[in-house]
């Protein structure tokens, strides 16, 4: 299978401090990959690098699909303004941007896509509700509906199940499994290791430096997890310049 994303010795970071350090590897098309690691391990940073929000300090991230609309990205739920007057329908309809842009008409097809996406995430009848009145779990369902409408071959999820109730998590995990079954590539930053073991065939264990990447069972060993924890606890403001052989060459 061809690679959807290829990391070529990628270092991403802020203020010259690496958050993701010398990552190399490929994500094949159709992969269902969990990205795990301790806090501050660079998991979210890696997704930002893939969507192009953050430029690598060194190395390259190659994308098979250069088109932005082929990626659906769900950031951590935090920044949305709860007082903003937007209906659930309009929120989900944003997923049509790739198809209609700023001036195209939503049309009957677009409306039906929004309606069926709402139905699939269990928010039937919520279309006229204000997004600000939704509970956290309902809002996450609505954001998943927007992902459904986007209909993208590559889906990036940043801690999609954090602080959700059990049932919402199960429903949304079923959607992720369906996307996987449809051959889409899904990368998810995850905290719950049991869920990762049960649902994700492949895992990237990150602690700034990549610790392990491969079959979930082989990656999530006690030895690896311990190593991940010890690596990322050290933080040195005056760390010396990294002289990796790749850069020197």
């Amino acid at each position, binding site marked *: 299978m061809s690679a959807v994303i290829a990391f070529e010795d990628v270092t991403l970071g802020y203020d010259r401090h690496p958050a993701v350090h010398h990552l190399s590897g490929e994500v094949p098309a159709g992969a269902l990959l969990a990205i795990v690691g301790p806090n501050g391990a660079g998991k979210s940073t890696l997704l930002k690098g893939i969507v192009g929000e953050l430029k690598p300090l060194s190395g390259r991230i190659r994308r098979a699909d250069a088109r932005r609309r082929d990626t659906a990205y769900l950031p951590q739920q935090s920044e*949305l303004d709860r007082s903003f*007057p*937007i209906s659930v329908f309009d929120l989900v309809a944003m997923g049509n941007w790739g198809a209609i842009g700023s001036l195209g008409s939503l049309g009957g097809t677009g409306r039906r896509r929004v309606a069926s996406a709402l139905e699939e995430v269990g928010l039937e009848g919520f279309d006229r509700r204000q997004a600000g009145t939704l509970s956290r779990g309902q809002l996450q369902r609505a954001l998943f509906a927007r992902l459904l409408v986007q209909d993208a071959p590559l889906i990036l999820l940043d801690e999609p199940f954090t602080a959700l109730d059990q049932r919402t998590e199960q429903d949304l995990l079923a959607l992720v499994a369906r996307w996987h079954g449809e051959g889409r590539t899904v990368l998810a930053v995850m905290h719950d290791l049991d869920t990762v073991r049960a649902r994700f065939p492949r895992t990237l264990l990150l602690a700034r430096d990549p610790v392990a990447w491969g079959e979930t069972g082989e990656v999530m060993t006690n030895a690896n997890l311990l190593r991940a924890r010890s690596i990322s606890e050290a933080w040195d403001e005056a760390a010396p310049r990294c002289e990796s052989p790749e850069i020197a060459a």
Partner: protein
Amino acid sequence: MIFDWLIAPFLDYAFMARALAGALAVSLGAAPVGVFLMLRRMSLTGEAIAHGVLPGIAVAYLLAGLSLFAMTIGGLVAGLVIATLSALVSRLTVLREDASLASFHLVALAMGVLLVSVAGSKVDLIHVLFGSVLALGDGAVLLLAGSATLTVVVLALIYRPLVMESYDPAFLRAVGGRGALVHHLFLALVVLNLVAGFHALGTLMSVGMMILPATAARFWARGIGGMIGASVAAAVLASVVGLLVSFHIDVPSGPAIILVAGAASMVSMLLGPHGSLRALRTPAWHRSN
């Protein structure tokens, strides 16, 4: 009697008719822009840019006197420069946009007041600061109408990405919408409407026609479309009532219009159907499911 009070002033006096036309044009352009300023939590940005246009107008006034054309260009240039500068500073340094705008607009306001008072009389300063809606010439009315038309057309063209950029800028970026372009076009509309409003209401008052109708509208509608309608309605009401008050009891018209808009905003906060004091405190019936 009612006719004498409400209608006759606009029919009998050409300056009142022109003032009404000008104020209505300002309402049509500034009120929708104000709704987005409010939703984007940029109300104070509008305020800062309003003060920022002053030195441009002052320099134009020094060079060309009370010339409509020169003062418009001067105001537009100064407003765009200050909006761009503060956006640049916040993007390139650690200073956030509100702080950089605040520092720019204080300097600009001081510079503007200094320039106008060094060169002109007190009357001119009052004119520049508080406007003269009762002395609008035909050219000024046309300018206001043109600005309102341009505003409505541009808003219609960027409406969808502007809403998305206001609510979820990260999403718009991720799907390749040009959020920065939309943001800058919107700021240009803010500047345009402030400069247009300056001719009618003055630099200090023109931002009032953006913010006050928008805050009033927040309490009358749930969706953005409804809020835009309600804010235009509030601005129109303030224009008509303000002009009449100013005519009958002989007070300056700009502040009168803004005070009426302020009163509308107060009443809405107290009594509007959505999220007002009354709406949040009154028990209401509820559905079974």
